[in-house]
């Protein structure tokens, strides 16, 4: 995992998209990207206590003329459904990048229900979803999702497959 480049590709994509506010709830899959966001003062890394706060934060950011993105674990999608309705009712741009659990060889059965329904859950709220299975596609998918989000304005999510992140096995 240490020599993977896709977290840097996401960061470059966020820079290309002029993203400034980056809200996050940590996930192991986002460790490197979160570190980069904290270290680079071109973005403001904003730790959240829940993914719901991210939707409010980014709504406010955009009302104030700034773009943002939300970094999260896929399970956080279950936390934000009513907030997605707000973003939908106001047609606010929303760019989400989620690292997935509960999809592929998951060792924690409590992760599986959300992992298996995340994409449908988002689509039910009219979010454009790019599910990415290959590391080399991640950066491009974030650019594409960002264009959907900020040109819409609309909601778009990149779901980074557990096949990219890898699944641990607690034996």
């Amino acid at each position, binding site marked *: 995992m240490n020599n993977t480049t896709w977290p840097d590709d996401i960061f470059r994509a966020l820079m290309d998209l002029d993203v400034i506010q980056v809200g996050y709830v940590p996930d192991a899959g986002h460790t490197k990207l979160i570190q980069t966001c904290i270290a680079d003062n071109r973005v403001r890394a904003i730790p959240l206590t829940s993914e719901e706060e991210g939707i409010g934060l980014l709504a406010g950011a955009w009302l104030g003329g*700034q773009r943002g993105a939300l970094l999260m674990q896929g399970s956080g999608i279950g936390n934000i459904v009513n907030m997605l309705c707000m973003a939908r009712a106001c047609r606010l741009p929303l760019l989400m990048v989620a690292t997935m659990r509960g999809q592929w060889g998951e060792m924690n059965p409590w992760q599986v229900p959300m992992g298996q329904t995340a994409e449908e859950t988002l689509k039910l709220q009219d979010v454009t979803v790019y599910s990415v299975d290959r590391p080399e596609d991640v950066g491009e998918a974030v650019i594409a999702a960002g264009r959907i989000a900020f040109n819409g304005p609309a909601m778009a999510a990149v779901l980074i497959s557990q096949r990219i992140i890898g699944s641990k096995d607690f034996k």
Partner: protein
Amino acid sequence: MTHPKQPVLDRRHVVENLLADRGELLVVAGLGASAWDITAAGDYALNFPLWGGMGSAATIGLGLALAQPERRVLVITGDGEMLMGLGSFATIAVQAPKNLAVVVLDNERYGETGMQETHTAFGTDLAGMAAAAGIAATATIRNEAELQDAVAVIRHAEGPIMHVIKVKADTLPKAVPPKDGAYLRDRFRMALLGDAAAV
């Protein structure tokens, strides 16, 4: 927990005072009575009244305050709405925006949904929770004299500020803002950022 003494302040009077001579102030209001209150004081383009997203008012204020550090941002919301977004106290404390004030109009009730008592009716102390989360400028305001001092703090003192204002649990005539979120959004952005910000 015991019931504290009955609130005396009128919420519309409080909001009129908070928004007097508002100038360039950016205002976000939580869903329900707070949205009607800011509208009763005048339906301005630089108001963003919520019709949903319960629990999000304070973080909308945060994103806005970070994006517009030169402008004052005031969030006015209810105790029920704030209770659904308590984590935002911690998130705001960490970002520490100097230009953000959050005011909770605490009627100790879920006014919009049948006046059920909220946790604050039994002693839950929202200002205390905000202080414990790391917001330095917190207070609970209970009478007219305290309100008059608090208005200057809320409008001008260094943030982040979180004030609870205890208000009477009255049901007042609704002053209804526009409902279309996309309209509210464009109206706000055009007033703040110029006509080019229209979608």
